[in-house]
């Protein structure tokens, strides 16, 4: 962890272009609200941030906040409604850009059960990205590559001819990771990759993500709702609420000293596995529930539940601004609140 953060600092100092830069990205889905009438569901609404080479950026938030959509839109699995994604400074716009981009950016999915084709052998699942991008010269080369990948993720090479249903949840997730790594990417979006796994298996997979990052120089966007897992694996963490980013900061900072009122509430709700800490915890209560993204409130989307909401919050949208070095918050009253 320490050497990782050093690396990030040097990258930041030298003013290097980040590996991924997201600029005013929007993803609206049309929802039918009646006969030929539609209304946009603003799943991701104007988010901007960068991911530095070699870091892990955690993306957290509650269901429906748009974290998964954000991950998928960055990979252009959904066509962005507006905004741009830059990979190493180059915008991804045309079909060719996307095909080229996908050789460098891949995804690990949450559900190890539905994300693997039950009719394909493990070797073919892992080999499919190689087929698509024509990344081998001979059958032997393909096979060697697949076995090497299986070895990397801790799967026995004898299992290459087996089908997904013959594996446990943890092993399936390893297959999904091997598939994501097949094209030798440098950026991987991990969408809740350990949520479906048991605690003891979860730790194995988390450690594997760490090791693979070191070995293969990967950059992760790690999406998850388990805040302790995200803190463990991430260098920086971004928090989303109703399609917008509300806070982005160093992982430890955001836990120990959250600045946005929503982040405060979220962090205080984390069930810490320590009875003494749990007894001493003062929870920041939120009133009401997350509004529907179809009827997002005016002004700051969080004002309906925010204990510090004032008139300005109801009227205008707060900008996502750098309040301290490397720390971004979208809150009108960030100074008064803290």
């Amino acid at each position, binding site marked *: 962890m320490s050497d990782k953060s050093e690396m990030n600092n040097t990258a930041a100092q030298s003013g290097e272009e980040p590996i991924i830069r997201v600029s005013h990205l929007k993803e609206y889905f049309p929802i039918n609200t009646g006969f030929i009438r539609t209304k946009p569901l603003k799943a991701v609404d104007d988010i901007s941030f960068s991911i530095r080479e070699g870091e892990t950026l955690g993306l957290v938030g509650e269901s429906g906040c748009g974290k998964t959509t954000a991950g998928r839109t960055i990979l252009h699995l959904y066509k962005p409604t507006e905004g741009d994604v830059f990979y190493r400074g180059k915008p991804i716009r045309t079909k060719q850009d996307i095909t080229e981009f996908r050789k460098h950016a891949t995804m690990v999915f949450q559900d190890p059960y539905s994300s693997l084709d039950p009719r394909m052998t493990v070797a073919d699942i892992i080999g499919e990205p190689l087929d698509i991008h024509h990344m081998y010269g001979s059958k032997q080369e393909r096979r060697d590559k697949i076995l090497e990948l299986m070895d990397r993720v801790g799967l026995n090479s004898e299992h290459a001819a087996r089908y997904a249903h013959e594996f446990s949840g943890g092993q399936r997730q390893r297959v999904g990771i091997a598939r994501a790594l097949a094209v030798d990417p440098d950026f991987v979006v991990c969408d809740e990759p350990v949520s479906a796994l*048991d605690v*003891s298996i979860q*730790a194995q997979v*988390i450690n594997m993500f760490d090791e693979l990052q070191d070995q293969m120089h990967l950059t992760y966007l790690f999406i998850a709702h388990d805040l302790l897992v995200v803190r463990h694996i991430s260098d920086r963490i971004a928090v989303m609420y109703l399609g917008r980013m509300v806070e982005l900061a160093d992982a430890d900072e955001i836990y120990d000293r959250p600045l946005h009122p929503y982040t405060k509430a979220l962090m205080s*709700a984390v069930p810490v596995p320590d*009875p003494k800490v749990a007894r001493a915890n003062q929870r920041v209560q939120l009133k009401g529930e997350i509004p529907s993204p179809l009827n997002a409130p005016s002004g700051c989307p969080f004002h309906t539940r925010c204990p510090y909401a004032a008139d300005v919050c109801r009227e205008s949208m707060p900008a996502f601004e750098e309040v301290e070095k490397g720390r971004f918050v979208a809150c009108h009253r960030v100074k008064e609140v803290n």
Partner: protein
Amino acid sequence: MALLEVKDLHTSFFTDAGEVKAVNGVTFQLDRGKVLGIVGESGSGKSVTAYSIMQILAGAGKIVSGSIVLDGMELVGADEKVMKHVRGNKVSIIFQDPMTSLNPTYTIGKQLMEAIMLHTKRNRKEAWDRAVEMLKLVNVNEPEKRMKQYPHEFSGGMRQRVMIAMALACEPDILIADEPTTALDVTIQAGILELMKDIQKQIGMAIIMITHDLGVVAQLCDEVIVMYAGGICEQGTADEIFYNPRHEYTKGLMRSIPTTSNAGRKLEPISGTPIDLLNMPEGCPFAPRCDQAMNICIHRKAEKKVINSEHYAACWMNEKPN
């Protein structure tokens, strides 16, 4: 006398592939007004233990032997009439997924009143009042209006509140909560856990909290049982289990979860994969994955050993002279 005494419970599922011993000799007691957490991974038998108490096992499941004594009454072998009275009046259960537990075609009010009228001698009017009262108890706003709404008009957290209201409407002695917050977001989860804690203090029922999340256990439970492969590894007060674990599996679990104190360090996962319940080893079921396993662990199961008056563990490591 303890409110609930489970003694050497064995529950099996008889499948085409053979007998799956889901619960394999479980013994514990639960006192009035206590919150007991049962933790374990998938297949550890934590839910089946609870379903055995309620006798709501799926078709192939059967209690093979053992005894379950509730308030002086033996439940194993009791006929269905007795069990119908026990369920709801004495022991209630709430499940993980509040959507599938509610009928989408009836209003919330009708479903609450049905449960109340089935178990108590209240008429419609009284049942309505009681249902409204219960919704108030679980902090549902505008209960009269909400009574006339359907489940789809409720959010996940609100549905779980309705389930708790329904479970508590007949004032059971024990509430079994089977992963009640697993499907919910953290802020909603925190609300539900706080609600359960408050109601427990107000009404004084006992709670059996079944979960895989050690964080949830730390928030809510007085006592904890750790299960692995159908048996109890370790049992004790929450503080004993968290700060003085004496079974290698519990220790492994504690080391493998990210906490606030081990951030930045590497996690120490438990190696191997969970056990196949169809092929149980002869000795300690955890021995194949245990770093400390000794010869005896492979051949003989460890007996439950008293660590102190609040703490038991079944691990040979405790017999080892220091």
